[in-house]
């Protein structure tokens, strides 16, 4: 087992038995389910909307070269500098060099999961900059030195009491016990930071090829402030974020809001097509867009799972996943948690190290059902399993299944063995999951049903004898 897999199983086991944690997550998601269904019901046809959204992303992903070139030309035409980064190091090095050249000391960052993926914050701190996360949830987990728990709700695992303790310790704030008071503490801290920052960093939810805009979705206003006030702005954009047309946003923005946070529309949806233009009185003087590959092209090359690049990072698949709800976001040990994380992490970071995530699934299909762009998530989990075994077969699986098949094809042997199993059942129950149980890996976490008093064949024979 890989170290990632060992850590995953240890953390998952601990959290599955943590009833307080489970209660917190259920409470946090309870309201989401009700509101999401209310919002979906307002659509003329949610299923047709999903089909149309999938079609827009299909067009983009399957002509990625064309749309990225168009996006770059349009952005450059209005003075944006576009940098193409093959991997995380290239992106982080470039952004650090932009900061260094401009003499940047203080950076204000709005939420970017792509930034988390390449550990951008740490790289810039190493380069001597102060980096402050401005999204409230991200700010809280940054103070606690934790990774985000959920791609959309980074601090959903914390109570107000824990957040208050963090604020008292790290910010020296007065005790507060309502979400409102706590939010205002963060607001006041952050207001200063926006005004002082020399550089803003953002991610992007979409990038419009047709007009050369990046699109940022948020509720708090932190991204608008981070992308407006500092004189220098860098946006980190995964190459799969590109969409062909501006009008695609007319569908995708409401759907992202509904699937992601059960909203009609997210509070701020901002299109940025360049730095301050002639005639404008504010906005950044310099704007850099970094287009990041970081093995997205490896996922693109797997045609069977290419639609995983349709993902708009709404988090809907996490919210409905029975695995996520039980083991929590941190157990995954990945930037992207939940079903989408289990599908793409093996492509981004290595199949053998991360295949365990694809095996840790009930294959119930709730994720595929929830996905607003119709990614076939649960089948991709099966394909990851198949690919992992084909690449590195488990030596004992074939002989075991061959033996099972041999046995099952011999009715006489089966008839002879079935009653023996009934006699042996108490022994199996006694040793189940213990050290001398050879199948303890499997039986340790599963119930062995009691042996029935008679087999179906015996029952059938008796029933006919009576007549």
């Amino acid at each position, binding site marked *: 087992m890989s170290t990632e897999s060992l850590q995953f199983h240890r953390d998952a086991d601990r959290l599955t038995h943590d009833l307080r944690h489970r209660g917190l997550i259920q409470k946090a998601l309870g309201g989401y389910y009700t509101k999401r269904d209310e919002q979906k019901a307002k659509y003329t046809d949610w299923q047709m909307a999903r089909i149309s959204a999938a079609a*827009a992303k299909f067009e983009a992903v399957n002509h990625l070269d064309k749309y990225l070139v168009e996006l770059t030309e349009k952005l450059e035409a209005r003075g944006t500098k576009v940098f193409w980064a093959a991997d995380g190091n290239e992106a982080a090095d470039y952004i650090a060099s932009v900061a260094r050249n401009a003499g940047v000391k203080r950076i204000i960052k709005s939420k970017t999961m792509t930034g988390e993926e390449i550990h951008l914050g740490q790289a810039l701190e190493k380069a001597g900059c102060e980096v402050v996360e401005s999204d409230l949830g991200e700010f809280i987990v940054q103070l606690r030195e934790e990774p985000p728990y959920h791609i959309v709700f980074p601090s959903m695992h914390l109570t107000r009491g824990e957040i208050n303790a963090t604020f008292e310790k790290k910010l020296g704030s007065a005790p507060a016990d309502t979400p409102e008071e706590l939010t205002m503490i963060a607001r006041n801290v952050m207001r200063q930071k926006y005004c002082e920052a020399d550089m803003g960093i953002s991610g992007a939810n979409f990038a419009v090829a047709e007009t050369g805009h990046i699109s940022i979705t948020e509720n708090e206003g932190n991204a608008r402030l981070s992308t407006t006030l500092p004189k220098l702005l860098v946006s980190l954009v995964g190459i799969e974020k590109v969409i062909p047309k501006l009008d695609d946003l007319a569908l995708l923005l409401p759907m992202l809001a509904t699937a992601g946070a059960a909203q009609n529309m997210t509070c701020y949806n901002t299109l940025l097509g360049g730095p301050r*233009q002639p005639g404008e009185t504010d906005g950044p003087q310099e704007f850099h867009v970094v287009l990041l590959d970081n093995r997205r092209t490896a996922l693109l090359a797997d045609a069977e799972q290419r639609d995983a690049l349709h993902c708009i990072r709404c988090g809907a698949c996490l919210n409905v996943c029975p695995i996520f709800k039980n083991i929590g976001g941190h157990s995954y040990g990945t930037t992207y948690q939940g079903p989408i994380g289990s599908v793409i992490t093996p492509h981004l970071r290595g199949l053998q190290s991360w295949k365990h995530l694809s095996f840790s699934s009930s294959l119930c299909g709730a994720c595929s059902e929830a996905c607003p762009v119709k990614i076939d998530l649960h089948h991709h989990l099966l394909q990851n399993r198949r690919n992992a075994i084909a690449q590195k077969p488990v030596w004992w699986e074939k002989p075991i299944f061959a033996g099972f098949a041999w046995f099952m094809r011999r009715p006489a042997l089966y008839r002879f063995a079935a009653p023996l199993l009934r006699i042996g059942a108490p022994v199996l129950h006694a040793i189940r999951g213990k050290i001398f149980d050879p199948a303890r890996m499997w039986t340790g976490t599963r119930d062995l049903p009691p042996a029935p008093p008679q087999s179906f064949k015996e029952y059938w024979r008796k029933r006919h004898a009576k007549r």
Partner: protein
Amino acid sequence: MPSDSRDKILRRIREALAVKAPACHLAHGGSPAAGHAPTDWLPPVPTSPDGRVALFEKNSADLKTGVRHCADAAAVASELAALARENAWKSVASHNFSLGSSAVQSMGLPVIFTDRGYETSALERCDAGISGCACLVAQTGGIMVTAASAGGRALSVLPPHHVVIASRSQLVGNLADAFAHLRESHKEIPAFVSFITGPSRTGDIERILVLGAHGPKKLTVLLVA
């Protein structure tokens, strides 16, 4: 400066796309019905102007955006004066726009006009930002702003109370209509466009809604007939 990997990435993409995606990735068995725009599947929007105003008001109420109706320019001035009294404004920020400028000046409060250039810290200290907008969106209860229509990029997000003055004729159906409006009125889509849908909000602490996370705590639309 590190060197750019554009050619390398484009080569990888073209190699990958040499293998076609399976047909099931497109619409999974169904296909978007012919003769329909993708936005047809979104929540329905009435075609009549009154119906759209009603939908905008309903969405605004859900979002906790205040909507006040003004019959004419004089009513705008009196509504602004009322807002200033109710919220005890001491200074405001605004910009030059036809629906609002004279009403803002008639308030008798210190005003920063962002389109004449401004200090960030001074704008931050203002009690309200009063701006125009490019259009209003009935389907979402949203307000589309551009730098030209709303006094720059910061005026609509930095002060703690944002007041938008718009005419009823600026109300459009959905986001696609808003984009069409931009195309008609500009040579190219402006470099800054933002949809504001309600006052700033967060649910990051126990998923409980709090208004005024970083942007305005209050949002008021003055709808001029």
